[in-house]
């Protein structure tokens, strides 16, 4: 089976963890060409060294008063934002694990492979198998790097139409074709009789609402739900079509790639995030999960929370949920009204790339797929959540885009292999004798 190239690349830019406050910083900057990494440290020092007398003291004051409070705020709402990311990551993993355990289609090994993993894994010879999995990984990673570079080049040269077309095509495929396949397999598993007209209706409605929510406007919760669903679908495809050992090596390699791509100065993902921040545009919604309302480009009066609140309330259909959430955010906003910047930070929340969702779910899904052991799945789940927590802690400290994959995937891999090989026999023996530790 051939998945389109858009799949491969688009999940890749999705691997980054971004805090949303940076775009407001340029308003305090005197010079815009200073590169972002220095911002976090010199953000507070810059007003002092700006060289202008009049704004100097004022800005120094502004910089100092929110200083301690900003730190405290960061940590205080750091916990809330960690939970706002825990919940969708958990939901995605739950969907993937539930599907893997019940629908056997995704664990059956087919002879078809993705064109990105051309080398077949021969189960007979360990050395050959290892070599082939490394070669598969190299092919896959080069495809991903290539696609990412194309995307960044397109973005830099403002070929928005091409990028949008590409993203729309890939979400079309996910929302219609993959969900049709998924639904078909679920019906087969539970032996549900279904006719085509009903199915067409369901898939059509699901897909169209999804396209609208993701690419245009929609209630926040619905958009989040759709993003979780498409990440889960993508993860399931990977679990099915990546060969056993290649999948593990690819997971390791992609977290290394994520680290390089986001942190190195010339890394493609970093350039993407920086360019988006320079232009003060949000990164495409189809690539990023946002835990709070996303502010659109050219939104007037971002410093006027009143109108913004009003706009937030009017947007989106489901009034009850929306109002609850916007009331909550608005209440938070009103309590910290001394700076519009703070208000904006509170509302924006934290963003996680969809690629991170996908690879976390691939790891946990593969843990669930191989063997019937639930302990391994649970251990990987906890490890990934702790990795995410640590990453968010680093995000709160460094305040710039960070790769969300390395720590979690490392913990996940370590715990998978150690739980599967060490803890499982131990717990099985204990359970057999009914000893409790």
């Amino acid at each position, binding site marked *: 089976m051939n998945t389109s190239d858009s799949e491969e690349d688009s999940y890749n830019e999705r691997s980054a963890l971004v805090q949303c406050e940076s775009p407001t910083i340029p308003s305090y900057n005197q010079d815009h060409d200073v590169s972002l990494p220095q911002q976090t440290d010199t953000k507070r020092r810059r007003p002092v060294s700006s060289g202008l007398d009049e704004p100097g003291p004022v800005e120094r004051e502004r910089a100092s008063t929110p200083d301690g*409070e900003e730190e405290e705020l960061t940590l205080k709402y750091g916990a809330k934002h*960690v939970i706002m990311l825990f919940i969708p990551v958990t939901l995605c993993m739950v969907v993937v694990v539930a599907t893997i355990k019940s629908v056997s289609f995704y664990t059956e090994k087919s002879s078809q492979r993705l064109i990105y993993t051309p080398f077949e894994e021969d189960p007979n010879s360990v050395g050959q198998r290892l070599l082939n999995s490394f070669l598969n990984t190299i092919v896959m990673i080069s495809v991903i790097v290539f696609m990412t570079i194309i995307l960044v080049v397109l973005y830099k040269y403002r070929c928005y139409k091409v990028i949008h077309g590409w993203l729309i095509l890939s979400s079309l495929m996910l929302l219609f074709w993959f969900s049709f396949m998924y639904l078909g397999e679920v019906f087969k598993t539970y032996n549900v009789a279904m006719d085509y007209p009903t199915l067409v209706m369901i898939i059509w409605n699901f897909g169209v609402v999804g396209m609208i929510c993701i690419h245009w406007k929609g209630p926040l919760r619905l958009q989040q739900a759709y993003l979780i669903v498409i990440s889960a679908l993508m993860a399931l495809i990977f679990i099915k079509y990546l060969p056993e050992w290649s999948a593990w090596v690819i997971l390791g390699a992609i977290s290394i790639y994520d680290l390089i791509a986001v942190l190195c100065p010339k890394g493609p993902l970093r350039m993407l995030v920086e360019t988006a921040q320079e232009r003060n545009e949000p990164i495409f919604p189809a690539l990023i999960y946002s835990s709070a309302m996303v502010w659109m480009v050219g939104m007037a009066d971002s410093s006027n929370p009143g109108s913004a609140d009003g706009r937030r309330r009017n947007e989106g259909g489901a009034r009850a949920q929306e109002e609850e959430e916007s009331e909550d955010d608005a209440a938070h906003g009103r309590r910290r009204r001394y700076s519009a910047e703070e208000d904006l930070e509170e509302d924006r929340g934290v963003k996680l790339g969809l690629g991170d969702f996908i690879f976390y779910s691939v790891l946990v899904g593969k843990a669930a797929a191989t063997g*019937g052991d639930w302990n391994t799945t649970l251990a990987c789940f*906890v490890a990934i959540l*702790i990795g995410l927590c640590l990453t968010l802690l680093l995000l709160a400290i460094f305040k710039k885009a960070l790769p969300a994959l390395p720590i979690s995937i490392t913990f996940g891999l370590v715990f998978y292999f150690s739980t599967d090989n060490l803890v499982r026999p131990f717990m099985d023996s204990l359970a057999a004798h009914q000893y*409790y530790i």
Partner: protein
Amino acid sequence: MTVAVFFGCAFIAFGPAFSLFVFTIARDPLRVIILIAGAFFWLLSLLLSSLVWFISIKASNSQDLRLQRDLLIFGVFFSVLLQEVFRFAYYRLLRKATEGLAAISDEDTSAISVRQMAYVAGLGFGIMSGAFSMINVLSDSLGPGTVGIFGDSQYYFITAALMTLALTLLHTFWGVLFFEGCEKSRWWVIAAVVSLHLLVAGLSLLNPLYEGSLPPVYVITLLMGVWAFFSSGGSLHSLSAVCTRRKAEGESS
């Protein structure tokens, strides 16, 4: 081996822990994070103890069943000791975190007290311990089979669930007591917690003689509960205040 057994055992084993989570922990994000980190620490201790056990197994004669069983018992006790070591390590980590949070925040106190952290950490340990003991058993109970067909006890599932419940609650109480002991530098409390944990693990070695393991473990659970209640500042007065306040509220409404 039916759905009824599955749900019954699941609710027995995880009901109290789940309700504790929903009512006391789910609302506060910081507590959820401390809970999951506690689970992680328990997992680390299990990993290390399994590693030690695995090495000892591989280094020994796999045909000698008596030796294997003895090594397993050694693994049990070693795991208990390691769990307590990691509980202490988690205590140190939380203390450092509290100091960090308190130093940064406006008020002098941090958002969460050591006692609350003790409770949440204990519950984290308990939930993870219970989950690891019980989940595979639960998933097997959904499938076909006959319990005890080779002459083992028929009460496997229910006793497993009861034991898991006891252990979850015990870990919670031990967490409270342990942290309290560390805070006040009362080393005898810590020693008591460790030895009671060893005792409970030792009692479970009496299985399948369930009369020897379950009732004593529940007695210990009750005692621990009472001790933890008084240690964390509760008193008979506060208990009666809760009852009378509820009665007063009931009358007034």
